């Protein structure tokens, strides 16, 4: 190629400048982001995630949940009117360095605040086991492989999932969540962006409305 060096350099400059602006600059800017710390209690907002929640994030990644669910509330659209959140998501919401599942499609609803909308662990277990048992029109796949059907020894386990109809285990058996299911539900319950931040205040009535509001 006659002008190899010129074209190589040209592409490097053209792409390099855009790369600096869209990747390198946000990296240096957001790396300085810190949580808001309450001076009296020492509590952090957003809160620190537990080990179980971190493991739940891995399970979320492994099941490919981000293919159908987003985790970012957009301002100015229907996201807040739908009760998916009380305010727009801001960079500080994703302060922790765990994987961030913004998602690419909303085949299912946004999960940024699913822990607030649906705070019952049992509901999540039942929903994961068979989504259509709670919503007959759901197109979410069942995650039965995250549960174990086992013989009841002595008393029914504390964490046995309450299943009914065709989902109910055969007599003398119970369905219990595996460690992965427990971690995944802990992760889902931790999805909460309803707290106020200096750059993202929340009106109280909205917070209340969401707690009593729509299902996921």
């Amino acid at each position, binding site marked *: 190629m006659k002008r190899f060096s010129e074209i190589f350099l040209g592409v490097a400059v053209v*792409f390099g*400048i855009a790369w600096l602006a869209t990747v390198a600059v946000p990296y240096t800017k957001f*790396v300085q982001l810190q949580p808001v710390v309450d001076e009296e209690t020492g509590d952090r907002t957003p809160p620190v995630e537990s080990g179980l929640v971190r493991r739940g994030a891995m399970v979320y990644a492994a099941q490919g949940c981000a293919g159908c669910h987003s985790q970012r509330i957009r301002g100015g659209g229907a996201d807040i009117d739908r009760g998916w959140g009380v305010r727009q998501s801001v960079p500080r919401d994703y302060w922790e360095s765990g994987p961030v599942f913004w998602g690419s499609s909303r085949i299912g609803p946004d999960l940024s605040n699913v822990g607030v909308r649906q705070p019952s662990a049992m509901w999540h277990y039942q929903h994961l086991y068979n989504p259509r048992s709670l919503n007959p029109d759901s*197109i979410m796949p069942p995650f039965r492989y995250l549960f174990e059907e086992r013989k009841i020894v002595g008393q029914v386990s504390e964490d046995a999932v309450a299943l009914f109809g065709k989902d109910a285990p055969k007599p003398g058996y119970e369905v219990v969540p595996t460690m992965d299911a427990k971690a995944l539900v802990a992760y889902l319950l931790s999805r909460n962006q309803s707290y106020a931040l200096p750059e993202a205040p929340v009106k109280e009535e909205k917070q209340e409305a969401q707690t009593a509001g729509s299902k996921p």
Partner: protein
Amino acid sequence: MDANNKADWLGAEEVDASFRRVVVGFWAPAFFWLLVSGALGFVLSVKLYKPDFLTTFFGYPVGWLSYGRLFEVWQAVTVYGWAGSMVLGAGIWMMGRMAGKVLSNRLTVGASAWLWHLGLGVGVWLVLSGGVQDLSLLGLPRQGLAMVWIAAVLWSWSVLKLLRQGKKEFVAQWYGLGAALCLVWILTTVLFLMGRPISGVVEGLLIHWAKQSLVNLFLVPMGIAMAYYLVPVIVKKRLPLYSLAAVGFWSWFFFASWSGAHGLTGAPLPLWLSTLGMTSSVLLLVPIVVVVLNLLGSLQSDPKAMIESWVLRFVAMGLAFLFFGGLAHVAEGISNWSGVLSLTYFSLGEMTVWVMGFVTLVSLGAFYYGLPYLLQKKPFEEKGVRVHFWSTVYGTATLVVLLLVSGIVQGKTIANHELTFNQVIESGLPYARGRVIAALFLLMAWGVVFLNVLKWVGINGFRMCSRKSEDEKQVVMEAQGEAV
């Protein structure tokens, strides 16, 4: 069958022979991945309206059949396994032909082919076994991506070496050079930053940027490079707007470089970032128009070649998909629509129209053109190619239209908060059922190409093509549009 035999050039037999093994090394597994992609496309499209379909194995619920994991695998095998492998194989061979040089580092490029497919295989295994622990790039987790990165470095280095050796200069080479450089740059950035404790918001941005960039700065430019090579070589005419080709090239790389944040409307990022992404995506239509006008002008100059050559039909239809995809990017780039169309099937449709439409069709053109040269056998039979062409076009067009339209419907129903989410789902069900038909068309198309190859090898055996004269080579070189 067509104009294939008319266009041998640069004493290509020696060049082709030196590339034979490595190109087949990229292409042969690509067709396996294509069949996997077709089968998964069908299963996934059924699962989208019948979630209980294929969730158990011998009566036991299994994770590897879940929608989420299979969707990740479908993305990976389609992007890396099929489209990526095809452009890597065709790309390096065409760059070698244009440079007029034999491949001296066959071992390096061969290792690249092996590592590329091995990395993908490792990635697929990890996804299916539930071993993915964090974000993945278009379905490929970090471990697989690391192997693919080594393969990309070896390939890009070999391509750049070939380009540097050649004495002539062609439009196709510009795009090859740009794509080779950007491929390594993108994958290096992802691997370097994904392994570090970075802010979550940067991770979200990084993955989205890499996904867009891999398509806009590697796959599509390589598709354009293949089209710029094939059309002038077969019709033996100069590009009608040769001087504009440079404008198209530089504007493509400029706008594509800034389009990484396209589709991030309303994301927790500075507004300028998503605005730049949207604007750049809209402006990508400028270089697309230049490419399409240039190549269609070249095709129009010899209508007979177009009638005779199925290779040219593949390329021409690919260009139609490129243009259509450009229009879809414009639609999502319009500020009032972007909030409605992003996070819907429309985004998947945009990617599908370029990867499954443009890149796939041009790659198939390159395959039908190139394989007889590489293996020094007769061209493919017209009948099989014709069936393959139409089933691919019908399947892809149906899939793309359904994805884009269902994306619009999905976006509009989600935007209307008075509708429940169940009503949103219900509005998309007819399109989901339609995609099953598109998936069946495509599965048939991929089956046909397999049969074509089997029949071709069976019938033609070891018969060789004849070498063309030096005069003819010169005509083709001039037609391709040698740079001044």
